[in-house]
């Protein structure tokens, strides 16, 4: 509101100014000042140019010193260090050019302002001069082009053999990761096979997809010091993977997989220590406008020590093994093989089940299995962490809708069980005809909420966190 008042104030001021000016120009005419070729204003304007330059230069230096501390920390990828170097080299060159040209541009108006008895010099041409300022920029640019080429071709070169392959899939509005699993081979996919349990459209006629897994808490984990290859795709519109700390950006294009490989150089832990900020996280943002929730497409990236990473990698269960209902999608000739991936009692008759019971049986494979919220161990801190990595992109804990509804007091509006079901797999709940779920789905233009492979405990923690925030 203040800004509007300021705006109106400025307008009023200008109106008053105008009245004064009108009066002065009338006075000028009476004094027949307009018969003279230039008035006093010419001197004022001539003076203002160098004055603007001096004040502007001070402002430039001062503002730079003020804002510089908030620039991104040093790049944490090998190529990023190079592109940063090139960036600052170019910035120095253009700053020199900027200052040099502006000194001339702003001094000349002062020096050569109109004087009654002066005559401008008739100086239409000088080939030598013009040659000079064609050749000098050409040389500088050649240097920049060649250094740029070298860096660019290194970055876009084929990834080294043995690079850690990870698929990053974008959708409205979030990211999904997929790791190739023990066989180090990402399985085939087809977008037409996409369902709520199979968000990647994994094609189970390709055995390589059986062991693919996703990072279940949605944090993208990568090892330090090894080449990492992102295989990037999109499921709906164009998005762009932007990891500012890694100086990494690549569009996610539906129908045209892209890639970007890089070598991370600092773990999250190292960075936290360096910045003295225990809360620090690497992030991925979306850099190509993709719709309402464009500004909320956040994914946390965690860089781990190699050994730590391998341990985590080995401990992950494949997506397939967590979703027995997917067995129905496996072609007959692989079925026997696929069944071996499940504990014996569950592989018995999963194919006839509908999605919702399948999901509740899903939690049976987890160590914690409780129905009533009272007996679930909740951890508000854990809930906050999960909320920030998963929900915050689309939801606020207020009455205000962002992409999805505001979640303030949601624990009072819906039953706990319903919330768990909806958060875990909203599409299944909608398909089962749940009235509340269908209503929300329609209210939000049929924008589905992605499913989340969380335990009851984790979801309860998130709800507990929302509850604690709602009462604040």
């Amino acid at each position, binding site marked *: 509101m203040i800004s509007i008042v300021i*705006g109106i104030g400025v307008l009023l001021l200008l109106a008053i100014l105008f009245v004064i000016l009108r009066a002065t120009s009338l006075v000028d005419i009476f004094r027949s000042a307009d018969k003279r070729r230039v008035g006093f204003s010419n001197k004022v304007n001539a003076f203002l140019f160098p004055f603007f330059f001096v004040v502007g230069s001070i402002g430039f230096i001062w503002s730079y010193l003020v804002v510089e501390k908030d620039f991104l920390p040093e790049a944490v990828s090998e190529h990023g260090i190079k*592109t940063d170097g090139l960036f600052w080299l170019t910035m120095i060159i253009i700053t020199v050019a900027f200052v040099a040209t502006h000194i001339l541009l702003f001094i000349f108006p002062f020096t050569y302002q*109109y004087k009654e008895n002066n005559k*401008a010099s*008739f100086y239409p041409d000088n080939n030598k001069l013009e040659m000079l300022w064609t050749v000098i920029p050409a040389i500088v640019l050649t240097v920049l082009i060649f250094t740029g080429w070298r860096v660019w071709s290194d970055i876009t070169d084929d990834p080294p053999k043995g690079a850690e392959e990870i698929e990053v899939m974008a959708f409205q509005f979030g990211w999904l990761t997929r790791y190739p699993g023990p066989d180090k081979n990402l399985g085939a996919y087809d977008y037409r096979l996409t369902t709520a349990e199979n968000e990647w459209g994994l094609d189970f006629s390709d055995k390589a997809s059986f062991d693919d897994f996703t990072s279940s808490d949605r944090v993208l984990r990568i090892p330090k010091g090894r080449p990492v290859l992102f295989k990037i795709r999109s499921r709906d519109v*164009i998005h762009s993977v932007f990891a500012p700390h890694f100086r990494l*950006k690549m569009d996610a294009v539906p129908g045209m997989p892209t890639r970007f490989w890089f070598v991370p150089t600092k773990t999250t832990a190292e960075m936290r220590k360096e910045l003295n900020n225990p809360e620090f996280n690497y*992030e991925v943002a979306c850099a190509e406008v993709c719709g309402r929730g464009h500004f909320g497409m956040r994914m946390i990236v965690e860089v781990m020590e190699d050994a730590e990473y391998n341990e985590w990698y080995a401990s992950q269960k494949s997506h397939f093994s967590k979703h027995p209902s997917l067995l129905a999608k496996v072609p007959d000739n692989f079925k026997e093989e696929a069944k071996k991936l499940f504990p014996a009692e569950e592989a018995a008759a999963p194919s006839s089940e509908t999605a919702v019971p399948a999901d509740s049986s899903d939690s049976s494979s987890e160590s914690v299995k409780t129905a009533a919220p009272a007996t679930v161990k909740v951890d508000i801190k854990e809930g906050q962490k999960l909320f920030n990595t998963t929900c915050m992109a689309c939801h606020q804990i207020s009455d205000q809708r962002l992409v999805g509804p505001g979640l303030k007091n949601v624990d009072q509006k819906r039953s706990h069980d319903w919330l768990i079901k909806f958060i875990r797999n909203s599409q299944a709940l909608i398909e089962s005809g749940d009235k509340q779920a269908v209503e929300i789905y329609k209210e939000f233009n049929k924008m589905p909420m992605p499913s989340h492979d969380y335990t009851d405990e984790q979801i309860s923690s998130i709800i507990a966190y929302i509850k604690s925030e709602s009462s604040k």
Partner: protein
Amino acid sequence: MAVVEIHQKGHSHEHDVHHDDHGHDHDHKESFITKYIFSIDHKMISKQYLLTGMFWAIIGGFFSIVFRLQLGFPEVELTWLKPLLGHWINDTGKIDPTFYLSLVTMHGTIMVFFVLTAGLSGTFSNFLIPLQIGARDMASGFLNMLSYWFFFLSGTIMFASLLVETGPASGGWTVYPPLSALPQAIPGSGLGMTLWLVSMAFFIVSTLLGGINYITTIINLRTKGMSFAKLPLTVWSFLFTAIIGLLSFPVLFSAVLLLFFDRSFGTSFYLSDIYIQGEALSNMGGSPILFQHLFWFLGHPEVYIVILPAFGIVSEIIATNSRKPIFGYRAMIGSLLVITVLSFVVWAHHMFVTGMNPFLGSIFMFLTLIIAIPSAVKSFNYITTLWRGNIIFTPAMLFCIGFVSVFISGGLTGIVMGNSAVDIQLHDTYFIVAHFHLVMGSASFFGMVAGIYHWYPKMFGRMMNDKLGYIHFWVSFIGVYLVFFPLHYIGIAGFPRRYYSFTGFDAFQSYTDLNMFVSAAAIITFGVQFLFLFNFFYSMFRGRVAPANPWRSNTLEWSTPINPGHGNWPGEIPTVYRWPYDYSKPGAAEDYIPQYIPYSETPTSNLPHEIDDVEKEDEDLDVNEKK
């Protein structure tokens, strides 16, 4: 004897082409409609373009203020905008995030196409080409009228799209599919986007009609003696602008048409492998990248369509008010030519990180950085024109110096972004926003305003108030730097563009103060434009009556009556003898010699090679006669 006959010859020549009697008798009836609405007079059409452009500039500028409020003051309540924006302001008084995207989309579309293409080229090409080359009107006045009315129709449709319930187009001014193709993806891609496409199609028709006319007029209707080497740089720049438009706009048309097919007839030019809202679409085999190639094949030349006319205007005004010939006339034309050619082969630098073949990236980086050379030549030549001048600071001149400044500032950062390796980080951050708002936004806006101040006396026969002009300039000039300079910082810090809010990211938590500062500066800069509007309309009726040649300029338009009628010159069109930049010529009585003064009349100031010209003037005429 010979001379007299030649005059007759020249006269009958005029008859052939221009229907000279137009110039002589003014007694044919003009109704209000034929004079002010469906006018075929280039001067009236130019004014129509100007006023329409100004109307759109206010809307486009207002949109930017609304989203700057959201960015600078995220907590501010905007309920007071509800009467205007309705349900786009939600119950808590905030802008709806989807409408935020509509605002940035429409701001871009309006400013680039309606203000800086139609408003700038449409106004000044129409106004200046016939007046400066010595023609009675455009080659086809009727096509020219159609051109304006197609623009008007296009604008009406775009305006209607602002009012539809699902909102106007909101996928960014570049309207990349699939976002722009699928109403499921964003509501603005429904009816709003359809109207956007239809509006653009008409806009393209308008631009092509205008462009053909400009080119034909410049080539065919130059007055006697007006060789290409004697054309003012304004006309050169309009010529190149029209050529660029003629070659590139049809490609946008094809892009728009195919997108229309994808949206309405189920084709898959740009669509493939899409699963949206629980449904797998049947489209396969299309490429969203194809659209980007087609779009930027226009989109990049478009920024030169926007800046070239400003180059021309600035060259003319700087030379006139420095009282010096423009430095390096040939180099100025040469650099315009090089820029024109290069503008067609750099488009993919907008696409370095789209997954396009990296080899293409290398080529386009090379070609992109080369453009810096002709641009540098132009900047240095402007500065050298000021050197040892006798500078008069009219408001137009101030805006021209401002133009050179913002053009340099914005142009230099282009060297950073043009480097594909560096662009990986900077692409689609605020750094690019800062870059193009300075180099094409502010620069061509300054060029346009300078043109208005400079040619206002010719357009309306009255002078604008120069004191108000000075205030307008200094506040605008300082304003654009305060708005766009800090955006570089925000970009270096990695902030992505088109974000409704930055609260979701740890990395983008800083700079709330800076964003507030930028928004405040934007509001003031926008506010001061109303001072200009006031000056513009007030002076139209109450301004000081203009003298015939208020800036003591050399070009032909100032040889017309103060309020030129239909046909521009009441008598014969003057013959041109010299280039337009004979300012402060040694030995001349005045510090300017208009183009229509023969060398034989200025014996004291003729240069050695021009002394021969005096004799040639006679010989040439002899040869002409014998033909």
